[in-house]
């Protein structure tokens, strides 16, 4: 049985700034990282590999430089890493992205049954949280979002029980396999690559599947297949707030002032 993790290479957005003139993201000097939620997805796929002997596959759609991120997936122990890359995939919105990812998953499913597809809860650049659910509906998989714990998997009955982390509560749900699961950070702590694994990962082959492999209708992928596009990015203007008290000379008094203020605006309940 396969456990697939969908990983996206994103700019380290804690540092992304918006160019005020062109209203585009300044990517100069910003390193790429694996989308942080996807690191948890990847980690969980490796834990299932260890626990249930599943085969762990990482897939990513992106430009050719995405191999760097897939190499890191090898360094922590995936069995196979596949890059979905083709000029015609470029400029995809969430719909077109989920089409390409679904096609790749279907293709893998033909050789070996896919049991679980892990996605991150959302990316830190696009932030739509739509790709995972998009894949699930396209493939007809059960859809379990915001999962913070895998309770159990019954391989005989082909079911999975997970815990979902919701606002102020948890929910335990069970679903038949195959499933698409989106994960939150509380799920696990991603491992750190060991040196022997890093060394091995240098030798590993990263398969590239382009559209000659996936054979999707070029009108349905990339920019052409995307009904949505980003027309403008900008930082919202914000008026400078009111400065109250002096936190350095009177921290306690200032904290009290702040509490009063929040109470008066009904932002805090006693």
């Amino acid at each position, binding site marked *: 049985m396969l456990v697939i993790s969908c990983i996206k290479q994103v700019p*380290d957005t804690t*540092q992304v700034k918006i160019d005020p003139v062109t209203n585009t993201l300044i990517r*100069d000097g910003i390193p790429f*990282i694996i989308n942080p939620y996807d690191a948890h997805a990847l980690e969980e796929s490796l834990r299932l590999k260890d626990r249930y002997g599943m085969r762990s596959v990482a897939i990513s759609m992106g430009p050719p430089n995405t191999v760097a991120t897939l190499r890191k997936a090898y360094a922590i122990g995936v069995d196979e890493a596949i890059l979905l890359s083709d000029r015609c995939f470029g400029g995809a919105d969430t719909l077109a992205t989920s089409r390409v990812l679904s096609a790749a998953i279907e293709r893998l499913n033909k050789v070996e049954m896919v049991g679980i597809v892990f996605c991150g809860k959302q990316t830190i650049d696009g932030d739509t949280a739509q790709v995972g659910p998009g894949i699930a509906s396209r493939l007809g998989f059960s859809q379990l979002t915001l999962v913070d714990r895998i309770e159990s998997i019954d391989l005989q009955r082909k079911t999975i029980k997970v815990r979902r982390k919701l606002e102020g509560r948890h929910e335990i749900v069970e679903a038949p396999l195959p499933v698409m699961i989106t994960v939150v950070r509380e799920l696990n702590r991603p491992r*750190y*690559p*060991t*040196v022997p694994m890093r060394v091995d990962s240098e030798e590993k082959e990263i398969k590239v599947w382009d559209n000659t492999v996936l054979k999707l209708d070029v009108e349905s992928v990339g920019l052409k297949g995307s009904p949505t596009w980003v027309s403008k990015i900008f930082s919202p203007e914000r008026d400078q707030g009111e400065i109250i008290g002096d936190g350095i000379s009177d921290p306690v008094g200032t904290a009290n002032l702040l509490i009063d203020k929040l109470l008066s605006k009904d932002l805090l309940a006693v």
Partner: protein
Amino acid sequence: METTRELYWNIGHGATVLLPMYLFTFAALGFLIRSCLQRLSIYRQGKPLNRTDQRTVRIGELAKNVLLQSRVLLVNGPGYAHGLFFWSFVLLFIGTCFVAGQADFTDLLFGYRFLNGEFYKYFSMVLDLAGLVALAMLLGLLVRRYLVRPAGLETTFDDAIMHGLLCSIIITGFVIEGARMAVTELPNNMGLAFWSPVGLLFAKALVGTGEHTLRALHQILWWLHFFLVIGFICSIPFTKFRHIFTTAANYFFVDLGPKGALVSLDMEGDAESFGAAQLKDLTWKDIFDTDACTKCKRCQDRCPAYHTEKPLSPMKVINQLGEVACANPEASLIETVGKDALWSCTTCRACQEICPASIEQVNKIVDMRRNLVLMEGDFPGSEVMTAMSNTEVNGNPFGMAFATRGDWAEGLPVTRLADDAGVDILYFVGCYASFDKRNIKVATSFIKLCESAGIKVGILGKEEKCCGEPMRKMGNEYLYQTMAAENIETIKSYGIKKIVTACPHCFNTLSKDYRDLGLEVETEHYTTFLDRLMKESRLKIKADSFDCTYHDSCYIGRYNDIYREPRALLAAAGGTVREMDRCESESFCCGAGGGRIMAEEKLGSRISESRAKMAAATGSDLLVSNCPFCLTMFEDGIKGAELEGTLVPRDIAEILLERVAT
């Protein structure tokens, strides 16, 4: 009457005495040598390491530390007791050789005697006093161990055997002498008896006993004394007595430096395992070290981790490794020592600096950490793993955008080497001074001091990466070497001739560790650099008197022996330093070394708070240091110890800048 004594008096000098005597002696020596050789196989379990180069230097170390007891005397009290005991014992040993040499060799074969006349008198006096001093020191140590019982001193059966043997050898020696004198010198050679004052006391005590009894007593005790010595020889390999040989040899095998540089791992080669998981991953010297330990606990007494109730004692680590080496060579070193102990070390070097046996504790701890990190991906906490991942992506543990590394210097008189590499010095800034608000102030002060001295300073800006020191000491040799390789390539590409750092960790790494990886540029810490500029009258400081206490950072103090220059700078600024009890080479770590700056201090109490309290105890309200890590730790430690308002931490550079003469 001849001024001498009859050697072998009352014992006889025939075959019935000499034969058993020498037979037992040689048998004991043979046994000693055989047992020592057998121990070689224990050391051979380790990996090779060359510690027999530069023999003259090594022999010098050996002579200095054995004959002068230099390292032992680093500690007063018991150190001096050991030293005096050692010298006395050596004199007694030489004396015994003289006696045997004349009686059984020169006199027997050539009829030549030298133990007579004036020489005999002094010989007699010296040996008598040596015996007395040895006994007094031994009793002092005995009282310390068994009655005073200093905290942490481990007393085992070994100690009972050792004290017992040595005391009884010396006491029987005196009684034998007393008995002989009571029969021979007391009645008719009092003039000579005065040259053996202690023997005389014993002789007087025996006055009144019949000659027959005295002779019997003498004979019995003589043989007892002899067999005690044989017992002593035979016990050497099996008790801490073996330190007589192992510790002495360890002075010869000492690490000749550069002080505190770790061995670089070959990350490119085809090694299958990194770091120390099992005994076979250590070097023979690491194993030999464990045999040289005398359990004196000096290291433990100075260990900041031990002091703050963490599960680490460098002495225990060494002893645990020793037990593995002797009894269980397959055991996991990491399980034996314990991860919490390993992660607690701040690599402050206090243990190594004081160890009378020249044992190297730090590299062993780092070697075990290396195994945890490189082979298991294990860290003391997720915050450390995050710092490592951040460093991989952005070249700093905070995860700040690498492109913003030089932003702090905006508007200051510095050039970026990418724009202009014609500078007097490259200021290697380091992560804290680049990104941490408090430390940016220090960096800024340094730049302004250089400006006032007419020094043209360059920085690498976004091309600079973390020096890799905290990662390396945490065990992440891979990440360290990645960072180092990038920095070295950048620095070399600009043809830099001189580097100055304001961070002791960067300084130690660039000046020593990077050598292994190909960087040969002269590197200095700002304290020595500014001190020289001041002496050359290029940097002019106006004294404006103030009171402070000064914290010797581990990596400027113990790792680089820079104690004078920072104090000279403070003095020039008008500072009166009230020294803490633990200062200079005995300084107490701030808690940040060994990569601990990246880790939360979850076990025991806070090291930084302990140090802040020590600083406050001097009565000074200003705690000056020379290291961004120390400054960061003290900012927290002072708050934690509730000393805010009582004590302010500052860096030397900030104090100097306020007093620059324009």
